[in-house]
């Protein structure tokens, strides 16, 4: 339950009811609320930014077509993003490309990538500390927010995400960039909880590695 403050944003449900009454302001609010996240996810599938923007536009047209039939049984957010994922998939098929969907790519079948390079640990036969750190991580500082949230660092993180395999990128985008719950992500992407966690783990581990290389180089 969201606590309403004086300037609280209206809940999705209120906006949906208004949209069903053909309220333009409600539509604009919804677009403003979700356009950025939709574009961010569309970019995972599209081969260009122009295509991603088109898929997002199509998604909103899909919303207008389907809103009468939308019941509040599922959340608007997951319904909206499922439209986007379906459009992106259909489009990929039409263009004769296979889009790697995490629903199809079982994380367990991917070649395992260790979270940390194996050479950073001592060997299994080390007399005192087998498989403990040989090259341990260095602290990023007691209050690293300042350097973590610089434009430079945020750009580095954007690039690190963009370089991830699409199935990893879908999950980390929705979970960590957009702040969704695991349930919501599983629901929209059609993947199991376990698969979701494996993909999230690999994605986060890679991004941490990119940040570490960045800070260690300084």
């Amino acid at each position, binding site marked *: 339950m969201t606590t309403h403050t004086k300037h609280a944003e209206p809940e999705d449900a209120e906006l949906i009811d208004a949209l069903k009454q*053909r309220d*333009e302001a409600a539509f604009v609010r919804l677009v403003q609320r979700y356009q950025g996240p939709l574009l961010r996810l569309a970019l995972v599938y599209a081969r260009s930014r122009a295509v991603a*923007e088109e898929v997002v536009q199509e998604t909103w047209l899909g919303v207008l077509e389907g809103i009468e039939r939308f019941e509040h049984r599922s959340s608007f957010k997951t319904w909206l993003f499922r439209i986007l994922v379906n459009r992106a998939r259909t489009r990929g098929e039409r263009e004769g490309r296979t889009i790697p969907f995490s629903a199809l790519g079982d994380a367990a079948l991917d070649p395992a990538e260790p979270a940390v390079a194996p050479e950073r640990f001592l060997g299994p036969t080390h007399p005192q500390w087998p498989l403990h750190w040989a090259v*341990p991580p260095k602290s990023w500082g007691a209050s690293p927010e300042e350097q973590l949230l610089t434009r430079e660092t945020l750009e580095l993180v954007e690039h690190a995400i963009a370089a991830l395999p699409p199935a990893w990128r879908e999950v980390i985008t929705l979970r960590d960039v957009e702040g969704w719950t695991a349930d919501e992500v599983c629901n929209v992407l059609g993947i199991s909880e376990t698969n979701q966690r494996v993909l999230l783990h690999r994605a986060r581990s890679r991004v941490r590695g990119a940040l570490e290389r960045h800070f260690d180089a300084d």
Partner: protein
Amino acid sequence: MPNAEQLTCKELVELVTDYLEGALPLPDRTRFDEHLTTCPYCRIYLDQMRQTIRTLGHLPDEAIPPKALEALLAHFRGWR
């Protein structure tokens, strides 16, 4: 000298996400916590994962290009 019951650092880094997601069975969670109390490097590693997640949550969304919004509004008015 660590005994076989204890987690190694190499194992811990692969369990970090399950730990943060609350998905570790209790015995594993206990072993994880025990390892952290004795291993400053793994505490740093866990901190870095948390900092990574927090940073990801700060990536800015892009603004809507005015043209895209106009096109949507044109559709909306046609639909209405």
